[in-house]
Structure formats: structure tokens, C-alpha cells
């Protein structure tokens, strides 16, 4: 047993959900107990999607355990197919269903659907979310691309779902038309190259790895796609994000693959290399240096000239970082933790592009420990490979860095230790799925990184000033420095307006007032006093307080 206050990754079936939700025309039937539908909220709330996740849960209960759980699963598979008409289906089990061993794959085969069905074996007690996503993507690619032409997605039986009959696709498009505000991930634009050289074929590539619930995947894809197209490439398929099973079927048509997120796409990319001889990129373009290296790697795979792009970088990070205002960043001690890709890339940016001193580097992804160890060695430190956030907390406390770059979990630790913090990797919460364009990849991503990594330090300086001038009338205890409450004292109440001299508060009423949250307390006090004046009450009782509340509303 492992004690976990927080967990860096969800169970592997959440990884499978990320792939299913990213795609169009794929439905996932998940054998799971009642309650596991909480995972829908990750997509509808954290990522703010305007569609239900394409997942049908069996939601069995204790009373079902008598023996008909297998039937329940078969019914769910049949019903989901009839209702959503997917082009391909995933079936699998969550951790509890794994214990009762109903064999989702075998049962799905017994149902005999006329579409490709991928049975997922995701060991929930030994593997985790990223592994689940990688395995699911690999299985889908293997099933759909491996037998090119053998399993073409059938047309929809009942003509309702036009255009390939994707489950959500037709409905979603209609819905978007009906309600322009409906938010959802944009399907990629039609794949027509902007221009074709005279009879000359442009080199093509796939972009592999972006999923639903990925940290900045939406904007990374747009940024990198733009970069590749400026370089003269045609993007064949982006997958899983926005791809349909039909798209996966033609994944082998590209010349090579761009692997943006190795945690999710490397397994599939390796298989595609074996199967279709497609090479894949190894540099992840996070940071200016890495983006340059990525451009060169892609150019060499595609046989194109990288110099025009490298001469027109469109990034401000190098100048921002060289300007004198950034002098004070030199040697700032930072601790970095996250998934392997983002941790390694951020360490490179921190050390060579911002001039920080990296004092700690680690990842929760054991599968990528080797790469992180190599980077740490290069920086002269020892890598921390753990999925136990208490160990991470211990390391941070021991190292006493001036800045923590990590995940949502490190925000907890940083709050506890009073250290400025920025988020550079999943797991993240709703605030890290922003409305504005915010890639971390490519040249624009470097701009975003500069702002993100430096911002909390500015706040740190502000806090220092507060500490130097403790009796400052404006920045008293509890007054938050600016927008980041992460390392600000919250205990003391903010200054309240002085009570009206002509009106007396009874002790009990005063006490009651204190129970109102501090951020609305001042308003409640003012409202009550003005109510008392209006109605000629001299002494405010608990009753007056509530009379005023009822009178004014909130």
C-alpha cells in the first residue's frame, strides 16, 4: 500500500478516456462501478468541453455482483453501439472491474459488432494514466492502421449520422451550429496543402501525442503545425486529438512522424517505424534551443532547408532574458518536477535560457527515468524519480529553492513552505486550461514560458517588500500581494471599514458577523448599519443582521 494525499497520475483507464475523448467517432465502454463517472468531470469541467465524454460506463452496484455483471457489460456494449454509432469502439475495465474479471474483450467479441473493437488490457494496480493513454493509442493505431483497407469503417446504418457517421461528429457539428458558444476542441482544418510545387510532392508528416486533458496540447498543436507548414511540410494526420478512426487508417501515408509527447505517442511511433518505415522526431520543441534543434531535425527528415525558419524565429525570450531587467534572475535556485518531457525541457530553459540554477530535477514517470537522470547528471545534480509527493515535499524542503516549477501538487507544497511556484506540467487544474492561446512549444511557447517562469518571482519581490515594511498600511497581513494567493498569508482578516460611531453592535451580533467569510464581511457590516440607520435601530442584534440580509439580499 502506498499512502497518497495526492496522486500525480490517475488510473490507466483515465488515460484511455483521454484518447477516446480526444478523438471523433470512437466510443469507449468501460466496465466500472457506480461513481467512476466522476472522470467525466475532468473533461467537462477542467477542460470545459461542451460535449459529454464518449464513454459508457456499466456502473454496476453491489446488488449486481451476484453474477450478471457480464450481462450488464454486454448490454452496455450493444446499447452504446446503437445509440452512438461509433466507427470504432474501445472496451475495458476499471480497477474494480479488473478484480471481478469479466473479460471485456471476450464479451465484446461475443456481441459481434460490425466495427473494429479494441479490447484494452490496462493493469490498474501496476500501471497509471500516461501508460494507459500510450497503450490505448498504440492499440488503436495497430488495429486501424495495421490492416489498412481490411477494416474500413462501415457507413452508418440509418443515414442519420452524415459524413462518416462519427458518434459525436455529426451531432457536435449540428450543436455547434445551433449554439455558437458551444466550446469544444477544434477539429483540424481540411488537409489541403496551401500550395503545391509544380508536380512536386510536399513532404508529409503526422503529429502524434496530443490528447484530451493534456497540458496545453491544444495550443502546442496549433503552434507546431504552423511551424511545420512554414517549413514546407504538409500535416497528414494529427492524432489522437481531433482524429477519427478513418484518419488513423491513413496514418501510414506520411513520410515521418512528429512525436510531441513521447509519454503518449512513443509506443505507437515505434510500431509505425517498424510497420511503415516512418522515422520519428526525438526532440521535443519546448524552449528556444529545443525548438531550433527540432526545426533542424524535422528539416533533415523531410529533406528541407531550415535556415529561413531559423532566421525568422518570432520569439522574444532571448531579448527579454538578455535585457538588464532580467539580471536579478541569475542564479535563482529552482526545483523542477513534472512529467519527464516537461521537466527535462524546463530544466534546459531554466538553466540555459533564463540563467537560473537548477538545484533539483525529477519526474513521477518511472518509464522515462533514464532520460531525466541523464539531464540531471548534465546539470550536476541527482534526479528524483518518485510518484510519492511526500518525497517530493521532503526534497523541496531540504533544498530550499527560491522557485518551484512543478505540477498542481507542487503548488500545495510551495504554499506550505511559502515558496513562489509556477505550473509547468500535468496534473493541472482548471486554471491551467486557459481561454487565451498559451502553448509551451515552439517559439511562441518560449514567450509563454518566459512570462510563466518569471511571474511568481516578481510576486516574491513584492512579498519581500512587504516583509521589509511590516507596518505598511496598504499591504497589511492578509492583504494578498496581487493575484497569486499561493504564498500569501491568508489567516489574518483584511482591514475592515471602521464601524459607524452612532450605532452599537451587540456582542452576539458582532460574533455572528465574524462567521461571515472575510471577503464579504465588510459589505455585510455596511449593509447592516445602513439598514439600522434607515429603520432607526440604535443597537444591532443578530436579528438586525439578518433583517438587513433579507432586506438587501446578498
Amino acid at each position, binding site marked *: 500500500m502506498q499512502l497518497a494525499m495526492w496522486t500525480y497520475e*490517475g488510473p490507466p483507464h*483515465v488515460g484511455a478516456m483521454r484518447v477516446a475523448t480526444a478523438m471523433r467517432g470512437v466510443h469507449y465502454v468501460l466496465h466500472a462501478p457506480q461513481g*467512476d*463517472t*466522476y472522470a467525466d468531470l475532468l473533461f467537462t469541467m477542467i477542460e470545459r468541453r461542451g460535449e459529454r465524454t464518449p464513454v459508457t460506463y456499466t456502473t454496476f452496484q*453491489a446488488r449486481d455482483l451476484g453474477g450478471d455483471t457480464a450481462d450488464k457489460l454486454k448490454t452496455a456494449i450493444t446499447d452504446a453501439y446503437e445509440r452512438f454509432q461509433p466507427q470504432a469502439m474501445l472496451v475495458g475495465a476499471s480497477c474494480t472491474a479488473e478484480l471481478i474479471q469479466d473479460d471485456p474483450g471476450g464479451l465484446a467479441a461475443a456481441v459481434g459488432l460490425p466495427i473494429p473493437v479494441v479490447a484494452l488490457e490496462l493493469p*490498474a494496480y501496476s500501471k497509471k494514466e500516461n501508460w494507459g493513454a500510450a497503450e490505448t493509442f498504440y492499440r488503436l493505431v495497430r488495429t486501424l492502421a495495421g490492416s489498412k483497407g481490411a477494416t474500413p469503417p462501415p457507413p452508418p446504418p440509418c443515414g442519420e449520422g452524415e459524413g462518416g457517421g462519427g458518434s459525436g461528429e455529426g451531432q457536435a457539428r449540428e450543436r455547434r451550429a445551433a*449554439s455558437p458558444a*458551444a466550446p469544444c476542441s477544434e477539429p483540424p482544418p481540411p488537409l489541403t496543402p496551401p500550395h503545391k510545387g509544380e508536380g512536386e510532392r510536399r513532404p508529409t508528416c503526422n503529429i502524434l501525442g496530443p490528447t484530451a486533458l493534456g497540458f496545453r496540447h491544444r495550443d502546442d498543436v496549433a503552434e507546431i503545425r504552423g511551424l511545420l507548414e512554414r517549413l514546407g511540410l504538409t500535416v497528414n494526420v494529427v492524432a489522437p486529438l481531433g482524429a477519427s478512426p478513418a484518419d488513423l487508417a491513413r496514418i501510414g501515408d506520411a513520410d515521418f512522424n512528429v512525436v510531441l509527447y513521447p509519454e503518449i505517442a512513443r509506443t505507437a511511433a515505434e510500431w509505425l517505424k517498424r510497420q511503415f518505415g516512418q522515422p520519428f522526431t526525438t526532440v521535443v520543441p519546448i524552449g528556444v534551443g529545443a525548438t531550433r534543434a527540432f526545426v533542424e531535425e524535422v528539416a533533415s527528415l523531410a529533406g528541407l532547408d531550415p535556415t529561413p525558419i531559423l532566421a525568422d524565429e518570432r520569439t522574444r525570450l532571448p531579448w527579454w532574458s538578455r535585457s538588464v531587467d532580467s539580471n536579478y534572475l541569475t542564479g535563482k535556485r529552482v526545483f523542477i518536477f513534472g512529467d519527464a518531457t516537461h521537466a527535462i525541457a524546463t530544466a534546459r530553459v531554466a538553466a540555459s535560457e533564463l540563467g537560473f540554477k537548477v538545484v533539483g530535477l525529477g519526474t513521477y514517470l518511472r518509464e522515462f527515468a533514464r532520460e531525466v537522470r541523464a539531464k540531471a547528471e548534465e546539470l550536476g545534480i541527482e534526479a528524483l524519480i518518485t510518484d510519492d509527493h511526500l518525497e517530493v515535499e521532503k526534497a523541496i524542503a531540504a533544498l530550499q529553492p527560491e522557485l518551484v516549477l512543478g505540477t498542481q501538487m507542487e503548488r500545495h507544497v510551495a504554499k506550505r513552505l511559502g515558496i513562489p511556484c509556477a505550473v509547468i506540467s500535468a496534473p493541472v487544474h482548471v486554471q491551467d486550461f486557459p481561454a487565451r492561446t498559451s502553448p509551451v512549444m515552439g517559439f511562441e511557447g518560449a514567450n509563454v514560458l518566459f512570462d510563466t517562469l518569471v511571474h511568481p518571482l516578481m510576486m516574491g519581490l513584492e512579498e519581500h517588500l512587504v516583509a521589509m515594511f511590516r507596518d505598511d498600511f496598504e499591504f497589511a497581513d492578509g492583504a494578498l500581494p496581487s493575484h497569486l494567493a499561493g504564498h500569501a498569508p491568508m489567516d489574518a482578516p483584511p482591514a475592515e471599514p471602521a464601524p459607524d460611531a452612532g450605532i452599537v453592535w451587540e456582542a452576539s451580533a458582532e460574533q*455572528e458577523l465574524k462567521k461571515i467569510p472575510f471577503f464579504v464581511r465588510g459589505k455585510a457590516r455596511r449593509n447592516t448599519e445602513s439598514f439600522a440607520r434607515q429603520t432607526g435601530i440604535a443597537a444591532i442584534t443578530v436579528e438586525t443582521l439578518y433583517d438587513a440580509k433579507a432586506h438587501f439580499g446578498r
Partner: protein
Amino acid sequence: MNAPVALPLGCDAPKIRSERGQRAVFCGLTGIVWLHRKIQDAFFLVVGSRTCAHLLQSAAGVMIFAEPRFATAIMEERDLAGMADMHDELDRVVGQVLERRPDIRTLFLVGSCPSEVIKLDLAKAATRLSQRLAPDVRVLAYSGSGIETTFTEGEDACLSALVAAAPQQAANAPEQLVVVGALPDIVEDQFARLFSELGIPDVRFLPARRADAAPALGPRTRYLLAQPFLGATATALDARGCSGVVAPFPFGAEGTTAWLSAAAEAFGISPQRVREVTALKENRARVAVSRHAARLEGKRVMFFPDSQLEPPLARFLSRELGAEIIEVGTPYLHGRWLAPDLALLPAGTQIVEGADVDRQLDRCRAERPDLTVCGLGLANPLEAEGLATKWSIELLFTPTHGYEQAGDLAELFARPLARRELLEV
């Protein structure tokens, strides 16, 4: 209108139907999210899988905690290999928790689907650990698994464990009233004042804010449920010899008066005294509610099942705000405790116990209600289809009971409609 509501238990009013299928609800583990704030010296240790841990942090993780008072002991492959060392492992993890949080007085071992399916005996583990850790820490066990509990039923299971562990009331103790259900502190204080004004002294609350403030229980205890989802706790209280008072739940002006009146009657307090205490406050609540009536009057409202609060809230919406109720979904219906609320719903109101979410969505899309009360997995997708929604979990995380919150409760339903009027983009 102002008279205390009689409690007609005859059931000719609403139509109750059961439905089975896919359920889009939380499991009982979610109760930890509010229970750990209410019981200030308790720690909740879920024994489960990574899924359980992920659920808790997805629900609560947006708050940044310096020190959370809940955690998961995640079972791993080697734990599943043999049952014997599971208990050793559990002891080790409990040791880790208490080393980190020496201020903890009650430790709840919370069962999950995986721990229930492999039949890990947490009750036995709790007894063993209690013996070892007494008197500093008591260890209790309950199940918050999805296979057994839906959302608020987690609180029901937790309170049942507290009832079983409560001290015995002295034989000559004075009669006491225990209000059951975790309430926001400010609501609890208001109720305490009201009961004291009515002439019921020393009213106690379950759960108490701290372990040492828990009420003793026995035949001289009358209990009053503040929440409709506490059927198992009520049964546990009955088993301790306590007797329950059946009443509509204290939502809105009418509900609160009816609830107080039922308790007063049980303690032999005259209706006249009840009127003296409640009249002004009830009126104040009506004023506050009426501020939102225009927005909800005649609006068609549909409830998806979530917390079991749906029937009393539908009653409040229908009787005090003039809304038309299309369908009231509830994950479970404790008939004995809900009878007074059901009797106050308009005749023919459709109550659906259980769920088949796809079919209910079909009905919802066909009806196109003015307001749909549903969980967060459905809310944004329905909004994107042009339907106004009120996400139901907020109804649990906001002070809503009693007179002083009646206006706020009405506002919770009015706000999404007001917002739609405001937005021009």
C-alpha cells in the same frame, strides 16, 4: 399558509417510478470533501485504488491545502497477492498518517469498491487499531464505495459509524434533541438558538465539530434529521433506542417552520409558542425568497438524481417559488423520511428513483426545461445545447437550510437564469 404543516402520510400525490441503467453519480467517498471540514479533528483514510485517490483530488484538489485531512492508501499488485499482509500494510500506513498528524483524534478507515470486492475487513482493522491507539485516537470504519453508496450516502455511512461508537446516555439523563446531518457551522448555530428559544435546551448535533463533543445516545434521545439521505443513520439511532421525529426537511420558510414544529410537538411545546418564536423569522425568510420568485415563477424545472435532496428542493421550488416540476430524479428514496415532503408536492409529480442517464437525457431534450438541475458531467454539455442548468453539487456545498438561508437557496436556482439574461455574447 403560516400554520405548521400536518404530516399526511397517505400517498396519493406523486407518481414514483424506478429506473435502472447507467448512473452518472458520485460514489460515497465524495462525502469526505465536506465531512473533513466539519469534523475538525478527524482524518479520512480511504483504502482503495488509484481511481479513488484520483476522484478525491479531482473533487478537492482545486483548493490548495497546506495539510489535507484525507488521503488514500492505494492498494498495489503485491497487496492483492495475499490478504494476510494487507493488515500489516494498513497498520504501517496508519502509522505514517498519525506521525504526520499527531493532532488527529478520530481516524476513519473508508472502504472503497476494490476493498469491498476483495472483502478486506476494515471493521476488524478499526477495532484492532483502536485498541492499540486508545485513548489518544479512535479508529472507525465505514464504506464509501460506489457499489454500495451514492454521493451523500457516504455521509450516511460515516454518521452510522459515529452512532455505533457514541457513548451511552445515562439512564436518568434529561431528554435531549439530536439534530442529525452535517450542517454549515452558521446554520447549526441558528438552529441551536431557535431550539433554545422554543424551550428545547441543550440540543446536540451529529456529527459534532470535535470528537469529544459527540452526544451520548439512548432511549431519552429524540432525533431530527436535517438531511434526507440519512436512512441508515436513522436505523442505527433506532437500534440505540433513540426515536426519530418525521418532518419535512428545513428548506425554505415553510419547510423550516414545519421541521421546527415537528420537533416542538415531540417535546410537548405548544403550537402557540412555536408561532411566537418563528413568525417573524418565517416572514423574513419569505421576504428574502420573494426577491427571486419573479424569475422562477412558472419555470419548468427538471432534476437529475444526485444527492437525495431533490424531493425537498422540488417541494421548495414548487410551493415557495411557483416553479413547475417536470421530473424529480433521486438516487434513492427513503420513504419513511420523505413522506412529508412528497405529500407537499403537486399531485402527479413524476418521481424517478434510480437512473438510466441516456434515457433521462432523451426526456430532458424532449421537454427542454427552463432549468435543469444536474451533475457537472452533464451541466456544460447541456448548456452547450442551449439548456440552462443548475449544477447540483453546489446545493450541498452552500448553506441552504433554515430561515436565514432561504433567500440564498432561492438565489442559487435564480442565478443561472439571471446570468443568461445578462450575457450578451
